[in-house]
C-alpha cells in the first residue's frame, strides 16, 4: 500500500505562540480523498488534529483548506493526485486561525448579512411566477456553498480585510438578478462603496478555484457597470 506525507499546519491557541508544522505518514488507496487522509490521521495517528467537515460531497462547504498553497475542498481532492508528496495542508488563507485547520469565518458572515441575501419586496397574491430564462439569470450564483475558497484565493481580500469579497458580492448579485426580488436599490450602497465592487481588480483567481462554478469574478464585475451607471445617472432619476 502506498503512503504519502501530509505536512499539516498546527496551532493550539492554549499552548502555541505561533503555528508550527507537523508531519504525518498516511497510507492511502486510490479512492481516498484528502479529507479521508485527515480523518485517518485523527482516527489513528493524532486525535488532536482539528478540522471541519460534514457532507463529504462538496455541498456543505466545510472542508476548505490550502493544499500545496491552493484553496481546495478536502473531500473532492484525492491523495493519489498529490503522490509522491509531501502534501502541505494549511488552513484557508486570509482568515484568522482558530485551531489547526479551523478558521474564523465571522468576518464573512457579517459581510453576508450586509448584502441582504434574501428576496426583498411584497410577495404576489398566489405563487411567484418565474420562467426558466429568468432563473438562468441568477442560477449559477445561487450555487454558492459559502466554502470561502474564493476569499482564500482573493489577494485583494488578503491585502484589505474590509473588502466585501467575492462570495458576498456574488450572493448580492444572485438576489439582484432574481426576477422575484425588488431590493436592488437597498443593496446599491454595499456595491458602491470603496470596499464594495471597487475593491476588486479582476485577478480572477476566485472564479478559478470555485468548486461550484459560481464565477464570482463575473458577479462582481458586472456590478462595476451597475455602480458606474448609478454614479453617473443618479441625478436623472425621478
Amino acid at each position, binding site marked *: 500500500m502506498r503512503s504519502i506525507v501530509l505536512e499539516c499546519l498546527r496551532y493550539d491557541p492554549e499552548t502555541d505562540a505561533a503555528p508550527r508544522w507537523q508531519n504525518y505518514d498516511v497510507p492511502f488507496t486510490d479512492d481516498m480523498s484528502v479529507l479521508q487522509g485527515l480523518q485517518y490521521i485523527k482516527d489513528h495517528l493524532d486525535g488532536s488534529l482539528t478540522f471541519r467537515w460534514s457532507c463529504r460531497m462538496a455541498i456543505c462547504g466545510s472542508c476548505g483548506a490550502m493544499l500545496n498553497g491552493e484553496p481546495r475542498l478536502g473531500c473532492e481532492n484525492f491523495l493519489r493526485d498529490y503522490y509522491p508528496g509531501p502534501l502541505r495542508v494549511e488552513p484557508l488563507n486570509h482568515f484568522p486561525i482558530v485551531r489547526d485547520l479551523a478558521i474564523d469565518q465571522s468576518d464573512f458572515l457579517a459581510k453576508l448579512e450586509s448584502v441582504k441575501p434574501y428576496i426583498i419586496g411584497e410577495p404576489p397574491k398566489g405563487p411567484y411566477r418565474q420562467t426558466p430564462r429568468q432563473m438562468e439569470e441568477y442560477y449559477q450564483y445561487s450555487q454558492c456553498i459559502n466554502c470561502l475558497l474564493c476569499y482564500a484565493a482573493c489577494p485583494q481580500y488578503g491585502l484589505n480585510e474590509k473588502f466585501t469579497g467575492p462570495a458576498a458580492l456574488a450572493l448580492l448579485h444572485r438576489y439582484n438578478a432574481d426576477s422575484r426580488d425588488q431590493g436592488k436599490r437597498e443593496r446599491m450602497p*454595499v456595491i458602491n*462603496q*470603496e470596499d464594495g465592487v*471597487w475593491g476588486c*481588480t479582476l485577478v480572477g483567481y476566485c472564479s478559478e478555484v470555485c468548486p461550484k462554478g459560481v464565477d464570482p469574478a463575473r458577479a462582481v464585475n458586472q456590478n462595476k457597470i451597475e455602480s*458606474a451607471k448609478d454614479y453617473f445617472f443618479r441625478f436623472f432619476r425621478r
Partner: protein
Amino acid sequence: MKRSNKPIFWSLFGAGGMLSALIGPALVFTTGIALPLGGVPLGYERAHAFAQNGFGKVAIFLVISLFLFHGLHRMYHSVHDLGIHVTPAMKALFHGIAALGSAVAAYLLVTL
C-alpha cells in the same frame, strides 16, 4: 456607507484599456520599431500635416490622454498590490499626472 468616486477613474481606465487593447500593439510596433528601422515614411511634413488635421488632433489627444489614464490608474492599483499602503495623496498624484499629461497634450495640439 460612503459612495466611492471610483466610477470616474474606472471609466477612464476602461476607455484607455479598450483603446490600447485595440490599437496599442500596432502603434508601439509602428512608432517604436518600424519607424526607427526605416520602415515608415513619416518625417516632419507628414507628421505635422496629420497633427494639423482635426481628426489627427483628436486621435493624438485620445491616444495620449487615455493611455495615460489607463496606465496610471493601474499603476496606482499595482502599488497597492505590492503591499504598499496607498494614501489619497498618492491617488491624486497618479491621476494628477495623467490629467497634467492630457492638458499638456491638448495645449500642444491646439497651439500647433
